[in-house]
């Protein structure tokens, strides 16, 4: 029997169907489940109340990240320091207790493997190509960077997966986003994905799974691919995928949870068969020329409010859609920006380099590259670099990057989500601006009244140096910059 040509998404989907209902809803098997402290307490509570157990604790991994302060976790004598915020401490304690109680491996805040779930999963080889991966956090789409079908779920679904290792899902439509050509100097994976969201809009991918295709992604590192897929959700898609290839296999091989021996060979053979077949069709396709992508920043309170750094703050009248005009008015007001202002004239008081979008070793390297031999501007009051995991932190320190960062006047912190959503003490003060490498510029996301501008790590570092939004290419001789 010859099979119809299938997309990468279709192939992963087909391999995980446990059961199909008449209405097309499928029971899908989940291969890997990541659990953190914020979205799990009520799920464990639900299991306990119903007297249920976790079906596959061995396919589940628990790690705290959202609430953790990024200051030292132990004192000089090696004693674990208490967490001042009582509610945070309660959630963290709940995970520390729930995970072992249900037989799930728990990585503690003081372990070197601890980090943001979406950094830990790929880093540990827990996330694998072709696997279905879920986590109670919308940026689970991140793991699509290694070719996994990964998406965020809510607490009820966390409970459902814990109890049954499955989810009820309807197949999504497919959206192909193809980026081809040569990226210019200083243009990184973050600029690519911000540009894509600016192009398709935050609802552009609703109901779809995005497959990122084209030479730009093929030539991208795994770190870069994780950054791109991470923000699929900002383009409205629940998941984003990049076909696993030799870069992926080299990345996965040898990681603590990665298959070995005969299992590895079997895995490799299957992974190689996953790429979208020639002739397979997508429900929608978007084509973008790599040459059109500039270092990009956001100016508003929606991730689609992007502009090349050389641009101006737009005016509401620049938008054709009436409701968008209203939204722009509200958002410029919130952001304290006047239409027509050059983006490079906008001053920032805070810089945050971190989050599951941009806290991997390449990101820290890119920031350090810009900071090397420079110092933050005086008007920048608060600038922190938060590595995505203890292992990223250790690697960066082994390369001496922490020293460059500290010498530049930035703080070097312990791993966690930090100012990405400001659930821990890392907050941007009301009315102040932050150059941030995170993924959401929503109202109040980085603290009540905080004004967020999203950008790449190199651009955030450049903003730290000049104290305003800055084209990183003006700081670094173009020849020194490698496209990422």
């Amino acid at each position, binding site marked *: 029997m010859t099979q119809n040509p299938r997309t990468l998404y279709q192939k992963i989907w087909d391999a995980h169907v446990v059961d199909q209902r008449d209405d097309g809803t499928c029971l899908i098997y989940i*291969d890997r489940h990541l659990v953190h402290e914020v*979205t799990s307490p009520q799920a464990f509570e639900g299991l306990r109340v119903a007297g249920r157990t976790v079906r596959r604790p061995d396919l589940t991994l628990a790690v705290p990240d959202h609430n953790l302060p990024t200051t030292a976790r132990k004192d000089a004598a090696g004693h674990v320091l208490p967490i001042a915020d009582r509610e945070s401490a309660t959630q963290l304690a709940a995970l520390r207790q729930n995970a072992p109680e249900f037989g799930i*491996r728990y990585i503690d805040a003081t372990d070197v493997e601890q980090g943001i779930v979406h950094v830990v999963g790929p880093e540990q080889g827990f996330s694998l190509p*072709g696997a279905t991966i879920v986590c109670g956090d919308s940026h689970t789409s991140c793991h699509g960077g290694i070719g996994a079908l990964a998406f965020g779920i809510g607490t009820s679904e966390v409970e459902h997966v814990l109890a*049954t290792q499955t989810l*009820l899902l309807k197949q999504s439509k497919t959206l192909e986003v193809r980026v081809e050509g040569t990226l210019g100097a200083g243009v990184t994976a973050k600029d690519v994905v911000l540009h894509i969201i600016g192009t398709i809009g935050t*609802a552009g991918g609703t109901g779809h799974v995005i497959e990122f295709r084209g030479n730009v992604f093929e030539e991208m590192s795994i770190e870069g691919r994780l950054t791109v897929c991470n923000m699929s959700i900002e383009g409205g898609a629940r998941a984003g995928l990049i076909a696993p290839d030799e870069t992926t296999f080299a990345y996965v091989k040898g990681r603590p949870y990665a298959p070995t021996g005969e*299992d590895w060979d*079997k895995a490799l053979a299957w992974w190689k068969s996953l790429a979208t077949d020639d002739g397979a069709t997508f429900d929608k396709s978007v084509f973008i020329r790599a040459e059109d992508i500039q270092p990009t920043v956001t100016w508003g309170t929606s991730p689609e409010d992007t502009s090349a750094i050389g641009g101006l703050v737009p005016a509401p009248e620049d938008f054709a859609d009436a409701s968008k005009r209203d939204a722009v008015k509200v958002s410029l007001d919130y952001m304290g920006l006047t239409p027509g202002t050059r983006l490079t004239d906008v001053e920032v008081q805070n810089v945050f380099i971190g989050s599951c979008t941009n806290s991997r070793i390449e990101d820290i390297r890119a920031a350090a590259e810009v900071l090397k031999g420079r110092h933050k501007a005086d008007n920048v009051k608060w600038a922190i670099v938060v590595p995505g995991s203890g292992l990223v932190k250790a690697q960066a320190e082994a390369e001496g990057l922490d020293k460059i960062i500290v010498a530049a006047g930035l703080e070097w912190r312990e791993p966690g989500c930090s100012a990405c959503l400001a659930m821990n003490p890392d907050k941007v003060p009301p009315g102040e601006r932050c150059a941030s490498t995170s993924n959401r510029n929503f109202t109040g996301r980085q603290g009540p009244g905080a004004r967020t501008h999203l950008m790449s790590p190199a651009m955030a570092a450049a903003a730290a140096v000049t104290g305003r939004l800055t084209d990183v290419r003006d700081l670094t001789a173009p020849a020194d910059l490698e496209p990422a």
Partner: protein
Amino acid sequence: MQAIEHVAGKAIPFGRKNVDTDVVIPAHWLKTITREGLGQGAFEAVKKEPGNVFTDPAYAGAPILIAGDNFGCGSSREHAAWALLDMGITCVIAPSFSDIFSGNAFKNGILTVALPQAAIDRLMEVAVDHPIDIDLDTQTVTTPFQDRFTFEIDPFRKHCLLNGLDEVGLTMAQGDAIAKHEAKARTALPFLMKTPTTVN
């Protein structure tokens, strides 16, 4: 889970588009470990706007919320659904919903009704002074003025909502099919079926 057949009463004419879950319930309310009490934090920022519909006593205790396009976008936090439930809202009407939010709403027994913008505009008008009526069985929204709008709903979701069925229990009843998938995968894709913490 509470069964839903019929939702009738006051509707909050909010109407705003692209309401993300940070607006429904800001992040600092996520630090709970139980589901109750979140209604207090719902729409916290909107409640500070002069003349907002959430602090207007006319809509206190309303079981229905009317919103604009793309309701519930952004973060996957299910606290958004719990917060609405805690406010007493069991039905949200909007032109469209984010996938994650509509899933979360369903799992917590909140009915999401998608209607065209023209119908929403009409309901917004009516809701100012009059009740709205949603009948899940016939999939209709009606007003005291003979307006009648029909909506689509997934038949399985409809069945579960009408009967107040708990999804986890329903799936656990399919344990054999799940075990069969695991057995098949153990041979075909063994690397997906184990990790270093798998016993034997």
